[in-house]
């Protein structure tokens, strides 16, 4: 009974003509392991299995993957959360090109992140010590700065699947609002101008897949709504 049935996506473009699913039997010894632990047990059986991982505690955002149909971080997802009738299906994050097995090319995701200029811009002379914020101003950044860019949200978003080159995606837009909401940033108008086209922000249809999968419990849909409000206030 403690043998877990795991089906995992395999693809090595150098040797395989097409991706396929490989079956594993993993002895969990009836423990409620994290999915990442199961992947390591599988790697003991087949050392060729490729996946990304680093901190194994939900901080680095390396091991985002699709577990039984839902995106999440393998290192902080216990089997009891995802396994149905003793079966677990692991696939790479949807919508991004696969490099090998569970490893995807995050290039498009980072390109959209770069596009929103994820750094503080301020054209006023720097004060002697620091740019102060009131506690209330600082509170506006809560729920925004915690994003670890694991890409679970953007790769669960159909709008990002269809237009990853034009739609910024929930992760990028959450970070975009993080800087729009920052009282120390003075590039608000330029940031908004870069977002008013029909794709960058407005391709969001508000289905909230991003909110459903975020391992940090963040709410990109709310941030996108705030960006829309700012655009509307600025242009009407």
């Amino acid at each position: 009974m403690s043998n877990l049935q795991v089906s995992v996506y395999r693809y090595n473009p150098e040797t395989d003509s097409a991706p396929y699913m490989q079956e594993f039997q993993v002895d969990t010894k009836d423990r409620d392991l994290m999915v990442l632990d199961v992947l390591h047990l599988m790697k003991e059986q087949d050392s060729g299995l490729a996946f990304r991982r680093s901190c194994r505690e939900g901080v680095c955002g390396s091991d985002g993957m699709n577990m039984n149909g839902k995106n999440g971080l393998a290192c902080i997802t216990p089997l009891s959360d995802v396994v149905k009738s003793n079966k677990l299906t692991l696939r790479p994050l949807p919508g991004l090109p696969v490099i090998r097995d569970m490893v995807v090319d995050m290039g498009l995701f980072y390109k959209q992140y770069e596009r929103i200029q994820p750094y503080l811009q301020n054209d006023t002379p720097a004060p002697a010590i620091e740019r102060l914020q009131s506690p209330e101003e600082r509170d506006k950044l809560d729920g925004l700065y915690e994003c670890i860019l694991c890409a679970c949200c953007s790769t669960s978003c159909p709008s990002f699947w269809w237009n990853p080159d034009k739609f910024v995606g929930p992760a990028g837009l959450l970070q975009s609002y993080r800087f729009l909401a920052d009282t120390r940033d003075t590039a608000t108008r330029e940031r908004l101008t870069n977002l008013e086209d029909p794709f960058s922000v407005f391709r969001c249809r508000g289905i909230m897949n991003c909110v459903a999968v975020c391992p940090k419990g963040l709410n990109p849909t709310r941030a996108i709504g705030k960006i829309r409000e700012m655009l509307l206030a600025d242009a009407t």
Partner: protein
Amino acid sequence: MVTNITSFGRSGLSDWLMQRVSAVILAIYAVFIVAYLLFNPNLDYYAWSGLFDQTWMRIFSLLAFVSVAAHAWIGLWTVTTDYLKSTRLRVGVQTLIILAIFVYLVWGIQILWGA
């Protein structure tokens, strides 16, 4: 900067606002028509024709037609840019959609004001 030339208002913000305003107008129009039909169970041609003879009803109806046109253009343009990846096919379908919307709009105006 992402550019576009076949979307309704050439701007995501204006399209988004237009989509919502037209949706509200269509909701009000739909509720009105359904309520009118419910409150007039024995509706005949003369009552129906009399309703559309009044100027306010014609303006209201034309407003709803224009809203359908804008709403359909914005919505279907979005669908084509999501799912049609071949430029030739996408521009072709977009042209057909815009043409059909134009024909229906003129046809609707003719029905409203023609008789």
